[in-house]
């Protein structure tokens, strides 16, 4: 257990799932999921549509409750009945469907549920902190006093990420963080993800973009049809990953690749 303490995989995991299952009526969205998140590592969660990635994230965020299985946080068994429980433990989540209040302004959204000075809101301090968080992200938000409804998709993503950092969490979960972002913002978010990791936090990132995943992840956990389907390192080949995601070596991606190579147009050799 302690043969190499510098290896993140050998330290005590912050978050550890054993045998977690989730049923929605007759549908088993997740079956027997095991997952460990160590401090200072980025775990990428990949899988096809419907593999259960978002369900898993929602369980860890306290939105859904697992049907069975145990969750240990810093060695203690925990149950999270509502999102507030997860936040209190130090698990921050950026949801795919951002979960912002469109009628409130940026400051109100960043501080939602965490307002400074409950009986006399400290708007100035909240606005300053909002700008700090947004500047850390090198964000381009025109005004923090405009309602969220006036922002673009990428700007909303930035606000959602800034909000998750507010509480200085121990684990931050990002569900498709770069899906709606431009090139520069994607790079910024990936930089930020690494900065968060270097601060010793655990990061869980869901992404469909294998390039992003390889760029930052320390471990790649593959889900398939609600089950664990292998753990990979970032240097695993694309074929291996796609095979684990789709569940077959012979799949649409490999067939396309072999068709391209057999017709003489190799990968990356297109005009």
């Amino acid at each position, binding site marked *: 257990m302690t043969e190499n303490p510098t290896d993140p995989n050998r330290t005590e995991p912050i978050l550890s799932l054993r045998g977690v299952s989730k049923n929605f009526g007759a549908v088993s969205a997740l079956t027997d999921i095991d997952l460990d998140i160590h401090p200072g590592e980025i775990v990428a969660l990949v899988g096809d549509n419907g593999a259960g990635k978002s369900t898993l994230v929602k369980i860890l*965020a306290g*939105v859904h409750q697992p049907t069975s299985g145990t969750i240990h946080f810093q060695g203690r068994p925990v149950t999270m009945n*509502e*999102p*507030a429980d997860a*936040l*209190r433990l130090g698990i921050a*989540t950026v*949801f795919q469907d*951002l*979960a*912002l*209040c*469109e*009628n*409130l302004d940026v400051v*109100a959204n960043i501080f*939602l*549920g*965490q*307002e400074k000075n*409950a*009986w*006399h*809101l400290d*708007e*100035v*301090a909240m*606005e*300053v902190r909002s*700008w*700090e968080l947004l*500047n850390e992200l090198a964000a*381009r*938000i*025109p*005004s*923090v*006093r*405009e*309602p969220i*409804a*006036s*922002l673009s998709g990428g700007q909303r993503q930035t606000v959602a990420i800034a909000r998750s950092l507010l509480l200085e969490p121990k684990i931050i979960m990002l569900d498709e963080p770069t899906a709606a972002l431009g090139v520069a913002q994607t790079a910024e978010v990936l930089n930020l993800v690494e900065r968060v990791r270097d601060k010793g936090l655990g990061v869980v990132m869901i992404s469909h973009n294998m390039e992003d995943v390889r760029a930052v992840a320390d471990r790649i956990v593959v889900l398939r049809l609600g089950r664990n389907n292998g753990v990979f390192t970032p240097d695993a080949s694309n074929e291996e990953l796609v095979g684990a995601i789709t569940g077959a070596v012979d799949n649409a991606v490999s067939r396309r690749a072999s068709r391209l190579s057999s017709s003489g147009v190799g990968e990356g050799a297109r005009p």
Partner: protein
Amino acid sequence: MSIQQKSGNPTMQTPQLDRADTRVRHAEGIGGSVGAFLDRVRSGDLGSLPVIIGLIVIWTVFTSLNPIFLSPNNLVNLLFDCSTVGVISLGIVCVLMLGEIDLSVGSMSGVGSALIGVLWVNMGVPLPIAVGGALALGATIGAAYALLRTHLGMPSFVSTLAGLLALLGLQLYMLGSTGSINLPYGSSIVDFGQLMIMPAWLSHTLALLPGLTLLVMGLRTRAKRQAANLSSSSVNGLLFRAAVATGGFELAVFYLNQGRGVPWMFGLFVLLVVVMNYAFVRTKWGRSMKAVGGNAEAARRSGINVTRIYLSAFMLCSFFASLGGVLSAARLASASQQAGTGDVNLNAIAAAVIGGTSLFGGRGSAWSALLGIIVIQSIANGLTLLNLSSSLRYMITGAVLAIAVIVDSLARQSRVSHGRA
């Protein structure tokens, strides 16, 4: 960029935190403020504008038809009448903020007034305890609505419609066969509802408060924002607004004092509005209310206890409805079977909507209860002065409510298309 480095130095060498992005237009000076205001209105962010325009139209029409309408004593009467339904409307603002509705506020106010009659007049319970009992019953019934909504998923539209009938039955049951209980003239509560007027010096002093508060709070916020390297409003603009507010209120109070003066009951109503406005704007509870009204799931994921927010809103609504019932018993010096029936329900809801609180949730202000009820009562009062029957009054009030909802709905569509939802 450090935030301390620029404190006390408002020159523009480094951009202020919130003015770094050059793509955004910022309103500068009074001309800029007017331009920004026009932009907001054009995109559907109407605020109190429709109600103020409506009020001007209504008052002009009624004054031209019967000059007595604008006489000081008639306006004093108007303020007395506003206070009772206005308090109920303040509760409606709370539930509308969540995108919910309470259709039983009329019956609830009837139960509140009946309880005063039964407990205080018939059973001899001390008045404060009787009032406390009525308010507690209101809060309890509100809690029941909230639990039905949050735990059984019963739409508030249905649960409060059921409550409307059930509470009306309770009111009739409590009043028994006589059907009405008179409150004794000369008692403190009836004096409060019919006679008690602020001394002129006090009303003039109180009229100074809004302007002073505006100025003092504005200057404090300005100093804090400058220290934090944020943009801040100009002192001239602040002085201008404070002067306009002070002038307006002093003039109104002066005019009312030409007649009987400012009723204490209206003072209580305004105090409640100010307290609720503070709660909505400056507390975590108010922020949570708006968040739940805007996107309940997002609010839940942010760790807001949505159940508790629903509970507080429905409890406040029924509480204010019961208080409105107590005030109307005081105003009429009786608790009768008619209390809270007829148009009380719709007037209270219409006032909140006309004042600018959205039926769709997430947008609203305590002031909308005050502004809206003045519109509604002006119509009722003006039509009564013209000797028109209540049939016409109902039709006209109904039309005004319909117009208010149409304006709300159109403004909402416009806000969505201008990205201001």
